[in-house]
């Protein structure tokens, strides 16, 4: 294996050089109230299109999450409608089940229109 030490933009590894300022004083991570909940943001970019996942952010409640989403994710006119849902409420399929869930669809080519060869004379089908 080639031996290289990679440094990335903003990444200098975990060298124990430390900074000159007082390392030992660590402000309490989140304050007494704990971190604001995480929300997932979905944005409709224009009328007629689906809401699409844009990213996430922190907010104390749904109303604030929508406003934050407006300020964070639509600064460049990216949207006309916003959905937010608290991340903990999202249920996801298990990636380990991906094989069982999605592979069986793989051999059902007859569900796709291109499966059927029709004479060129047939139009508009």
């Amino acid at each position, binding site marked *: 294996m080639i031996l290289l030490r990679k440094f990335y933009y903003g990444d200098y590894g975990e060298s124990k050089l430390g900074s000159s300022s007082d390392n030992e004083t660590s402000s309490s991570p989140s304050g007494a109230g704990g971190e*604001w909940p995480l929300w997932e943001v979905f944005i409709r970019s224009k009328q007629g299109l689906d809401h699409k996942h844009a990213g996430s*952010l*922190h*907010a*104390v409640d749904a*109303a*604030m999450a929508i*406003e*934050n989403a407006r*300020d*964070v994710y639509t*600064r460049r006119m990216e949207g006309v409608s916003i959905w937010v849902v608290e991340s903990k409420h999202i249920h996801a399929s298990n990636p380990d089940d991906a094989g069982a869930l999605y592979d069986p669809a793989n051999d059902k080519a007859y569900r796709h229109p291109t499966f059927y060869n029709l004479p060129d004379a047939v139009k508009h089908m």
Partner: protein
Amino acid sequence: MNVSNIKNSQVSPSEGFREAFTLHLADNALIMGHRNSEWCGHGPILEQDIAISNIALDLIGQSRNFYQYAAQLFNQSTNQPINLATEDSLAYLRDVRDFKNCLLVEQPNADWAQSILKQFFFSTYQYYLYQQLQNNKDEQLKAIAAKALKEVTYHVRWSSEWVIRLGDGTEESKKRSLKALDELWMFTGELFEPAFYETTMNIDFVLLKEGWTKKIRSVFEEATIDIPVENKWHQTGGKIGDHTEHLGFILAEMQFLQRAYPNSEW
């Protein structure tokens, strides 16, 4: 630019009133936006840092529209302008005594409670003022106000929600909210005392104050904050150039490059 046109010691009846009024609107928006922009990079949480910077951008945008219009008015009214007025000459080359912003907007940010309350007082005032301006005879002012009103509507919503959160949040936030109120209340009366140049602008200040007071009252109620008793005595003067000391420091910082390197393009 012929600065004498916009001196606050205006004497001839109603001449230059429209210019002065436009400048007043511009100065209000600029100084408030400038104060908001001081938060950029220092907000209490990333999401709100972005939110208050958005408001700063809206306000600076508004000020540019007003300054551009004011410049146009000056350039038309001056027969032989030596230097044409521009948005930047108006923002960067007038001194404290020529600025016409309300005292409220130049007050320091202090903490989040004070910034929020200042924003709430100011945005609510802007909201009712722009609503009236939407029907002004001056087509330009009308157009600028109509566009800005959408922005301001959001500023009112955002700031009133924060006033409520802080007022009805923790003991600490309540304490800070009350302190902010104590600091800022005496600067709110000025908003409804027309300066000489406002008297001919078809603004109903009684209506303005009514709308403002009603909104403040309802938000304060939700924030569990008592509205102070109507005080006859208010700090006034900003509109005609009698400022607090804070404005001088804002301008010193803001105008530094234009002053240090005159006649340069940036």
